[in-house]
């Protein structure tokens, strides 16, 4: 059991966070179908501790499904996911998830939402609230603890959701298109903030996106996935230093990476096979 409160609550994570995805295959039945749909076919992927990996692909490529499998919210049809060598069997506070739709509980104040993780781990109400305050500070909105989620803007809600996930002190951070629902302006601010936080906590991050620019800005490595069924098509290492990518003069280089990613994503579009049923629904 990791300590809930170290001297520096918002600091480096307790280490670890190696993810190994081994031959993950996922099928599901859509309503009315006779034959199962294959969402993921034999996916292998390793993520090193502290690494920031983006899963990139067009919609329907199974990237979110893969993330949910790592989170333990979906169970793969076959194959397994290991976290620091231990098989994933279900959701756990080891693996924090930030959902696209924020998923803040509307009946709790922002503070109570963030305090929920520590509370479920056994912290007292006072300690949990103190932790919540620290994380609110971390995401740059120390004054909104008493508000309810519906009173916040989209960007603030997503900050709160990130704070809630971080406050549970996960070893890895799983983010499912977290910035897809906010406007472009807010998105770029949030992206920079995320990298700032990641630099401090040094957590493993798996980040799902369909935006090549986002992947180029954020990732150590970009995993491009192809659709129907979802596979790993190609893996790129982005060599640019993280702290420079948001500098305006680096924009051309980032754009160059994005362009390269785009070419790969484009050629990984699904081919409509004769007799393929995937697209008829």
């Amino acid at each position, binding site marked *: 059991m990791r300590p809930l409160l170290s001297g520096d609550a918002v600091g480096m994570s307790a280490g670890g966070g190696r993810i190994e995805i081994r031959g993950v295959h996922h099928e599901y039945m859509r309503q009315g179908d006779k034959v199962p749909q294959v969402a993921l076919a034999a996916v292998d992927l390793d993520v090193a501790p502290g690494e920031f990996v983006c899963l990139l692909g067009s919609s329907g490529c199974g990237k979110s499904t893969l993330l949910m499998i790592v*989170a*333990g*919210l979906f169970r793969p049809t076959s194959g397994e996911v290991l976290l620091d060598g231990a098989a994933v069997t*279900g*959701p*756990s*506070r080891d*693996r*924090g*998830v930030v*959902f696209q*739709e924020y*998923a*803040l*509980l*509307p*009946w*709790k104040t922002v503070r109570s939402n963030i305090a*929920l*993780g520590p509370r*479920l*781990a056994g912290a007292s109400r006072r300690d949990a609230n103190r932790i919540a305050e620290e994380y609110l500070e971390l995401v740059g909105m120390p004054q909104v603890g008493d508000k*309810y*989620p*519906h*009173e916040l803007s989209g960007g603030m809600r997503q900050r709160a959701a990130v704070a*809630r*996930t971080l406050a*549970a002190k996960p070893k890895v951070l799983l983010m499912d298109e977290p910035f897809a629902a906010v406007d472009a302006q807010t998105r770029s601010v949030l992206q920079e903030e995320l990298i700032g936080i990641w630099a401090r906590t040094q957590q493993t991050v798996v980040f799902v996106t369909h935006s090549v620019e986002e992947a180029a800005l954020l990732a150590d490595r970009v995993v491009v996935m192809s659709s129907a069924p979802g596979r790993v098509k190609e893996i790129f290492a982005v060599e640019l230093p993280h702290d420079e990518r948001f500098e305006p003069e680096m924009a051309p280089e980032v754009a160059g990476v994005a362009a390269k990613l785009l070419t790969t994503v484009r050629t990984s579009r699904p081919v409509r096979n004769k007799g393929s049923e995937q697209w008829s629904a």
Partner: protein
Amino acid sequence: MKVPAWRRLLRPGAVPVALVLLGWLALPYFDHIPQYKLPHLAQVGSDLWGLARSGALWAALGDSMGRLGTAFVLGAAAGVLVGLAVTLSRSLNDFLMPVIAFFNAIAGIAWIPMAIVWFGFGSGPVIFVIANNVFFIVLYNTLLGAESIPAIMYDAVRVLGGYRRLTMVREVLVPGAMVGVLSGLRTGLAFAWRALVAVEMIAASNGLGYLSIQASRVFDGATVVSVILVIGAVWVVMDRVLLRPIERVTVRRWGMVGQTDF
């Protein structure tokens, strides 16, 4: 919101009310309408005053409210519990829902005759029928509330370490279903109040409904109209004093419902 009472009387809504009252005041000049059919305003006023002074009104009101309270608490508690249980267990859901749908279709009031057979005239059938009424309304609204919780809320709590079912129930199901439960309670109370008057007319020997139907039998129009006014007024008070404040401090504060009134 601090408008003095007398100022509020000047609002536009007061105009039709005043017109109705004026029309009613003018009634004595239309002498072809018999008093028992449409009693004069003064008549109703003095009747109401008489009922209040003699204590008959308070006794009837007390009887009615006591039954309402008992039946409402019984029906609502059962409704919420069964609603949550059915939500939590798929097989219970499959088994119970058709039966529930059928019994719900038997209008609560249709139970009056059997309730009289089982409990005799008095409070028994009134409480039985009303609790029955409230139960279904609260149950269905609880189910609706529980169903409207996005699945992602459960996922969000699970990934934060809420592994136990009880945690899920406490953190997500109960507060999430609250929108439904509260609207169920509100509707349930409204229906209970409707049913109460009807059942008392048929199956009781005291209470507001009985007071009214007895008056009708002896052509005492003034008392009938008095009771109608009391019934309307009590509902308005219950709604404002009891239900809306509860809604204000919960689901409305959570941004889960909008303004739904006229």
